[in-house]
């Protein structure tokens, strides 16, 4: 898809008719743009901003795909398997980008890698909505969709996330007066 056909912001012609899914799609545009504008403005703590953006992007990708696939399953959508395969392929691509980004030490190389990742996410989402998601537009109905906020689905997609909690209290002696 060309830049002309893929706007920076989400536009109503990209709507699949379900609010929760449209909101997810908007999020990808927003986070990709947030990364790109941070790279342009180059603030002092750019690396920290990029790392946070990438973390959130990954969480949202996982949460959103879970939301879509659950809805397709609930609706008995016939193309679920191939849609799922496309989601998995993109997850793998994104994962590789993130792994590469994490290995980079040089500031300018980090900027380039993050810029590339933001573009890949933006273009893929745009293209995927237009060509793949639109196919379920008339099939999926709101009642098939788990409309809880994306963060909750991300949490469920990232099973075992609780294990990563770390007890800060264990780092400091005593609990003080209560």
């Amino acid at each position: 898809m060309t830049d002309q056909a893929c706007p920076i912001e989400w536009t109503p012609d990209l709507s699949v008719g379900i609010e929760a899914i449209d909101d997810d799609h908007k999020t990808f545009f927003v986070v990709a743009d947030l990364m790109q504008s941070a790279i342009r403005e180059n603030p002092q703590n750019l690396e920290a901003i990029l790392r946070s953006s990438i973390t959130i992007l990954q969480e949202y990708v996982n949460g959103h795909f879970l939301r879509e696939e659950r809805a397709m399953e609930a609706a008995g959508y016939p193309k679920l398997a191939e849609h799922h395969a496309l989601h998995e392929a993109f997850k793998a691509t994104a994962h590789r980008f993130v792994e590469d980004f994490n290995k980079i030490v040089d500031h300018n190389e980090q900027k380039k890698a993050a810029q590339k990742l933001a573009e890949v996410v933006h273009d893929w989402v745009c293209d995927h909505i237009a060509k793949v998601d639109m196919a379920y537009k008339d099939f999926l109905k709101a009642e098939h969709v788990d409309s809880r906020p994306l963060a909750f689905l991300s949490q469920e997609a990232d099973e075992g996330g609780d294990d990563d909690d770390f007890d800060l209290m264990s780092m400091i002696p005593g609990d003080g007066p209560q």
Partner: protein
Amino acid sequence: MQDKVEIVFNILSAEYCLVLDPNPHYQRLVKEILRFGGPKNLEIEFAVDADHGLRLLREGSMHFIVMETKLPLEESIDFLMKIRKGRAKWNFDISLPIIGYADAFTPQEIYRLRDAGISELMIRPLSAATFFKCLKSASSRKFIETSGYCGPDRRRRLVMNYANKRRADDRAAELAEAAKAEEARLKAEADAKAALQAAAKAEEEKARKLEEAQAEAVRKKVQAEQLAREKAQAEAAVAAAAVAAAEMARNKAEAEAAAAKPDPSAMTQEELSRHLLKQKK
């Protein structure tokens, strides 16, 4: 799932939130996390410093605060204390959840922020999942007000996130640290046990030596007594021998005397009278 019900209830009921961070990129990032991750119609106000934040809090009640804890640090701590200890001063809820974040924390910084009344802390990179875990944890926390401390119950744990590579690295470092600490603990335990054993052995040795010395003293006493007894016996034997010798000498003298003594029957009258006279004398 119990957890889910709690999250939805606590977080989705929030309507107003204050984000205190002078960095516009983080303001946007936090906004996106909250807008797409959390309550649908949450209204977010942004403050760029502590005074600005307090002004916004006075103007309209907030349900929770998200803040950079290195505004710098002293400013963040001052902001927290002003809220938590301002029961008489402010018209807003001083017990509202306050979630803090920074790139890193020293234990000292965690200590100070906690004592100033922070509800939860997050390490950047920010993660939506951690964000909502923190909000959930913070909003179910009891609020404590004493003369020394005002803030959420510190006995509840704080949740800290580890994302991406840093998460793995920190986790590994943390595990290595824990393994090292465990090793040190085991060594200290073994050392203490060895020291105890050594002390017990020394004590035992001392008791054994004392016992030996006592036995030796007894043995020497018995020996001395034996010697004294033997000496006394020897002396007695010498005395007895002397008595015997005297007796013998006496007997011998008597025999000699007897031999020398004239037989009165064989004496002439003249000899007899001389003999009697001699005896009389």
